[in-house]
C-alpha cells in the first residue's frame, strides 16, 4: 500500500475509561428517570383501559369518538386554540421584531424585560381583564359579558396571557439569525424585502415554535375558559373524572384532544428542535439598524403596545383592587400556610427537575438526523392534557400502603415535574447548544478525568441553562392548576387553588393581594432567568 493513504491509519477502537462508563451509566439513569416521570402517569391511565369497569359504563367507541355535544366541544376548543395561536403569534412576532431591532446600546439588554409576564398564570390575566372591563363599562361587566361574550373574552385573555411566551420564542428565533446572512441580503435588496425573504424564513423555527407552544397551552388549559363560562374539551375530562372517578374513561375521553395535540407536536417536532438548536454561539456584530417603511413601523408599534398592555393591565387593576398597600401583608398573613406550601412545592420541583432535565438534554443534543426518537420522547408529553396527568398520578399513588406519599407534598411536586420537565430539558438543551464544543473537547484533552472535566468545565458552561430551567419550572409550578387541582393532599391548598376558587365569585382585595404575591414570585423567577442569561452573554463576550 502506498505511503500516505488511508491504509496507514488503521481504525483503533479505544476501550472506554472507567470515568466514561460511569458518565454513560449516570446519563442512562437520568434519562430513564425522565421517561418514567413524564410518561408514568399517562401510561398508568392508559393501563386502566384493561379495567372491566370501562366497558360496564359506556363502550370504548362511544367514549373515543367525540360525537354530538362532545364533537361540537372539541371543534370549539380546537377553534379557540387555533384562534389564540394565530393572534398571539402575529402580535408576538410584531412585538419581537420591534424589540429585535433594538440591537445596540444599553437599552438593548433590557428588551427581555418586556417578557417578564411570561410566567404569570393565565387566570391572573383573566381577573385583571374582568376588572378592567368592569371598570370600562361602568361596573356592568360582571355577569353580562361572561354570558354573552364568553368566547371572545376567553380568546382575548388567552391571547394576552400567552403573548409574552410567543414574543419570547419569536425573539429567540430572530436573534438566532446570523447578522452576516442579513447583511448579505441588505446589499442586494431593500430592508423590507430582506426582512420578508431572508430574516423571517430563517427565524421560522422560532415563529412556528411559538405558534405550536401557544396552541398546546390553549388546547390543554381550562382555567381561563371556565372563568368566562366557556365549556372546553379539557374541562370535560376533569368534570367526567370528578363525576365518575373512572380513570380509563377519562383516558378515552382525553384521546381526541390528545390526538390533536400530538399531531401539533409531531408537525412541530422539526421546528422545535431547530429552534432549540438555533441558539448557537453568537457574535453580536454591530449593524446599522434596518430602515423599514413608516407603515410597517406603525404596525410593529401596535404589537409592542399590546405587549405593554398585558403588563400594565394586570399590574394596574390588581393594585387598584388592593384598596390599600397594607392589605397585601394582611392577606399574606392569612394565607401564609398556602403561600408556604406553594413555594415549597415550586422550589422542590425546580430542584428535582434539574438532574433528569440534564440527562434528557444530553440525549437531545446527540439526537440528530434520523435519530428523532428521543426528540419525540422528550416533546410528546407536552401534548398530554393537565387533568390526565393528575388522574394518572392518582391511579399510581392512591393505593393502600402508599398513603404517606399520596397525602403529602410529593403529589403536586410530581404533577409539576410531569408537566414541566420537557420545558426544563429544552431550556438546558438551548444552553448546551450555545456552548462552543471545542471548549468541552479541550477539557477532555487537558482534563484530569471525566468527572473532574465535567465538574470544572461542562457544568459551569451549562450553569446559566440550569438556573434558567429552575427559574422557569419554579414560576410555572407556582401557577399550575390543571393537575394540582386533582392531586393536592386533603387539608392543603396552593395559592393557585385558593385564587381559582375565589375567582368564580369575582375579584376582591384578597384575590388581588394573592395574585400580587404570585406575580412578585413569578417576576423574581423571570429576573433570575434574565440575570443568568445576561451573565452568560457577558462571559461569552469576555471569552
Amino acid at each position: 500500500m502506498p505511503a500516505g493513504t488511508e491504509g496507514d491509519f488503521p481504525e483503533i477502537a479505544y476501550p472506554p475509561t472507567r470515568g466514561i462508563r460511569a458518565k454513560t451509566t449516570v446519563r442512562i439513569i437520568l434519562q430513564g428517570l425522565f421517561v418514567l416521570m413524564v410518561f408514568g402517569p399517562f401510561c398508568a391511565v392508559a393501563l386502566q383501559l384493561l379495567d372491566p369497569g370501562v366497558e360496564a359504563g359506556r363502550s370504548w367507541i362511544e367514549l373515543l369518538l367525540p360525537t354530538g355535544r362532545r364533537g361540537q366541544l372539541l371543534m370549539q376548543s380546537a377553534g379557540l386554540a387555533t384562534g389564540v395561536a394565530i393572534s398571539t403569534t402575529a402580535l408576538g412576532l410584531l412585538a419581537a421584531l420591534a424589540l429585535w431591532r433594538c440591537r445596540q446600546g444599553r437599552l438593548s439588554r433590557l428588551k427581555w424585560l418586556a417578557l417578564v409576564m411570561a410566567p404569570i398564570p393565565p387566570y391572573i390575566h383573566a381577573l385583571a381583564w374582568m376588572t378592567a372591563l368592569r371598570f370600562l363599562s361602568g361596573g356592568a361587566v360582571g355577569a353580562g359579558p361572561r354570558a354573552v361574550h364568553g368566547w371572545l373574552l376567553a380568546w382575548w385573555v388567552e391571547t394576552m396571557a400567552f403573548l409574552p411566551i410567543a414574543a419570547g420564542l419569536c425573539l429567540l428565533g430572530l436573534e438566532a439569525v446570523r447578522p452576516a446572512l442579513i447583511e448579505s441580503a441588505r446589499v442586494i435588496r431593500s430592508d423590507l424585502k430582506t426582512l420578508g425573504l431572508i430574516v423571517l424564513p430563517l427565524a421560522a423555527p422560532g415563529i412556528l415554535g411559538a405558534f405550536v407552544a401557544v396552541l398546546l397551552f390553549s388546547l390543554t388549559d381550562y382555567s381561563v375558559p371556565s372563568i368566562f363560562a366557556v365549556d372546553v374539551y379539557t374541562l370535560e375530562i376533569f368534570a367526567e373524572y370528578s363525576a365518575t372517578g373512572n380513570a380509563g374513561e377519562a383516558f378515552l375521553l382525553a384521546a381526541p384532544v390528545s390526538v390533536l395535540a400530538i399531531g401539533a407536536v409531531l408537525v412541530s417536532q422539526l421546528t422545535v428542535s431547530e429552534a432549540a438548536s438555533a441558539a448557537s454561539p453568537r457574535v453580536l456584530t454591530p449593524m446599522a439598524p434596518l430602515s423599514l417603511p413608516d407603515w410597517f413601523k406603525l404596525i410593529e408599534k401596535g404589537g409592542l403596545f399590546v405587549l405593554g398592555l398585558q403588563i400594565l393591565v394586570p399590574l394596574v387593576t390588581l393594585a387598584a383592587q388592593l384598596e390599600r398597600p397594607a392589605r397585601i401583608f394582611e392577606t399574606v398573613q392569612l394565607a401564609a400556610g398556602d403561600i408556604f406550601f406553594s413555594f415549597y412545592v415550586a422550589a422542590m420541583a425546580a430542584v428535582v427537575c434539574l438532574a433528569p432535565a440534564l440527562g434528557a438534554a444530553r440525549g437531545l443534543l446527540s439526537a440528530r438526523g434520523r435519530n428523532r426518537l428521543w426528540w419525540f420522547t422528550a416533546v410528546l408529553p407536552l401534548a398530554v392534557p393537565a387533568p390526565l396527568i393528575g388522574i394518572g398520578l392518582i391511579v399510581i399513588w392512591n393505593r393502600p400502603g402508599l398513603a404517606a406519599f399520596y397525602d403529602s407534598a410529593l403529589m403536586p411536586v410530581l404533577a409539576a415535574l410531569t408537566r414541566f420537565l420537557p420545558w426544563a430539558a429544552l431550556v438546558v438543551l438551548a444552553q448546551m447548544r450555545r456552548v462552543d464544543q471545542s471548549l468541552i473537547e479541550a477539557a477532555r484533552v487537558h482534563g484530569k478525568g471525566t468527572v473532574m472535566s465535567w465538574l470544572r468545565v461542562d457544568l459551569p458552561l451549562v450553569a446559566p441553562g440550569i438556573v434558567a430551567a429552575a427559574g422557569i419550572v419554579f414560576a410555572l409550578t407556582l401557577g399550575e392548576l390543571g393537575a394540582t387541582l386533582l392531586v393536592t393532599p386533603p387539608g392543603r391548598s396552593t395559592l393557585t387553588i385558593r385564587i381559582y376558587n375565589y375567582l368564580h365569585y369575582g375579584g376582591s382585595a384578597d384575590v388581588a393581594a394573592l395574585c400580587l404575591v404570585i406575580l412578585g414570585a413569578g417576576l423574581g423567577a423571570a429576573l433570575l432567568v434574565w440575570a443568568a442569561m445576561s451573565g452568560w452573554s457577558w462571559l461569552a463576550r469576555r471569552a
Partner: protein
Amino acid sequence: MLEIRNIEKAYSVTPVLRGLSVTVEPGEPLVVWGPSGSGKTTLLRLIAGLEVPTTGEILMDGQVVSRRDWLLPPSARQLGFVFQSSALWPHLTVAANIRFALHSRPRLEMRRRLEELLERTELEELAGRYPHQISGGEARRAALARALASRPRYLLLDEPLTHLNDDLKERMLHLIHEYRQQSQACIVYVTHDREEAQTVSTRSINLPTAAGSR
C-alpha cells in the same frame, strides 16, 4: 469612483480605523491587506453602508453615501459583496442564492445570467444543492457568483479565495479580472496574504493593527 475621506470608526472607545483616506478609480482594484484585527472588514462594511462611520465620509460618484448622520441604504449602492463567511442563505439552494441578486431582470435574462455564472464558477452540478451540502471552497465560489450576478459598479471582496486550491484560485482571480475589465467596476479586495495581494493589483494599502493615520 469611490472616495473615502478621513474615515474613523470606533467601537465604544476602541478605535478600529483612524483617519483613513483613499480613492478607488473605476477599473482599478485596491487591495487592502494587514493582520487580523486591523479593520479590513470594518472598512468594507463601512463602504457597504452596513456600519455608520464615527467621523469622515464616503462618496460614490461624487455623492456622499455615508456620514455620521446620513446613510444611503446598502441596496441602493449598486454593490456586490463577498463576505468573509460566504453568508449563503441556508434555506435557499445555490441557484436561488444567486438568483436572489438578479431580481429585477427579465426572466430570460435572469436564466442566461444564472447559467453563465454557474458555468464560470464551475457550480453547474451543484445548482440545486443547499449550502450545508457543499464544501467551503464551493461556498466561496457561490458567494462570488452571487456578488457578480447583478453586475455591480462596486465590488467588495473580503478574502474571497480562502478554502480554494491553487488552480481554482487562479481561475477565480481570472474571473474577477475579466469582470473588472468588462465593467470598469471599483473593486476593493481584502486579504491578509501579501502574495495574493501582489497578484491582484499593484495598488494596495496596508492596515496595521489599531490603524493609525496614513
